[in-house]
């Protein structure tokens, strides 16, 4: 009986320590990104010849947002709008004001099912590295872009995105790595930053195609 109590106590300690090690990102966060909207200095972007060709062939029509489609990942990692983060037992929801984008980050150890099709949002799984949330997103669509300036995204089966989210007081930081060997010699890295806004609001964002392009 005594040993059972000890085991139970250890179990509780492990549970509590595990729970407190996770970061608490729940709530509404207002965008407050670094210069260049958190995009890398162009000199730091090392494209492959194929990536450079795609970059030079970019036209605005390839920007999903100008067709009123959500930016998806990686393009939508950073945008100038608030986000809301909601924890559930099996997933973390990231609710973007921008284009009403919803991301489900599964944190229960599941893997992408075989039937999952490539899409703008892909398939995201997360795990905790201490109090840092590490999200890996696969199954991403070639219709996506890395950034609106024309940085491409191949959507190849091997392409994926890794995000590391951490909290420092009322500040939320993201480092995102776009792994796309077809287009980049090394990962394209973005940095996002949000400020906790307990009284913040997520507004409707209806996109009107007529106003999406240029006359």
């Amino acid at each position, binding site marked *: 009986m005594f040993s059972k109590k000890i085991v139970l106590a250890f179990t509780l300690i492990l549970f509590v320590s595990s729970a407190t090690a996770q970061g608490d990102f729940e709530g509404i966060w207002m965008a407050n990104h670094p210069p260049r909207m958190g995009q890398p200095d162009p000199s730091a972007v090392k494209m492959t010849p194929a990536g450079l060709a795609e970059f030079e062939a970019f036209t605005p029509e390839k920007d999903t947002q100008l067709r009123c489609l959500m930016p998806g990942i990686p393009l939508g990692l950073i945008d100038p709008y608030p986000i809301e983060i909601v924890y559930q037992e099996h997933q973390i929801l990231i609710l973007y004001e921008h284009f009403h984008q919803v991301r489900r980050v599964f944190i229960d150890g599941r893997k992408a099912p075989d039937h999952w099709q490539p899409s703008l949002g892909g398939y995201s799984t997360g795990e905790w590295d201490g109090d840092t949330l590490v999200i890996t997103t696969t199954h991403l669509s070639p219709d996506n872009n890395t950034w609106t300036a024309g940085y491409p995204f191949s959507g190849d089966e091997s392409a994926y995105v890794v995000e590391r989210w951490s909290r420092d007081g009322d500040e939320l930081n993201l480092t995102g790595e776009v792994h796309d060997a077809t287009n980049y010699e090394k990962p394209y890295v973005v940095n996002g930053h949000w400020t906790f806004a307990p009284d913040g609001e997520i507004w409707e*964002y209806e996109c*009107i195609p007529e106003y999406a392009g240029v*006359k």
Partner: protein
Amino acid sequence: MFNMQTTFKEYRIAIFIVALGVLIGFPAMAHHSGVAYFDLEVEIIQHDAIVVEYVLVNPHGRLTYKFNDEAGVQQEWTGELASSNNLRRLGLGGAILKPGDKLKTVTGSPARSGTNFMRLSRVDFENGDVAQLVGANAGITRSGE
């Protein structure tokens, strides 16, 4: 509806090198292929405009206005703005501009398409108010503040 007495004072194009500062502190408008659509190295300043229409929508609002060019010919241009959501957060909601309002200057970068379309960066109202539409200080400054 429009004040046809508006006179053309000046229409000038100022070329400037944007260099490293193009996207620095650019919370409101830098998100949608701006570089691809607009020549951000060119700044156009148009004077004595009359508001035709101010539309608050996503992904971009639009301001359509008229002014007389150097030859005295009336021109109609449309300026692309930030999204409705961001304009509202900047204090530039729907009531701020209405058809017939007078604008001292309208500043922006022209579309690469060559049409009468540009991405607005600043609007100076006749009453002295200034709407800064890009940069870290985006928002409206009321005259007298």
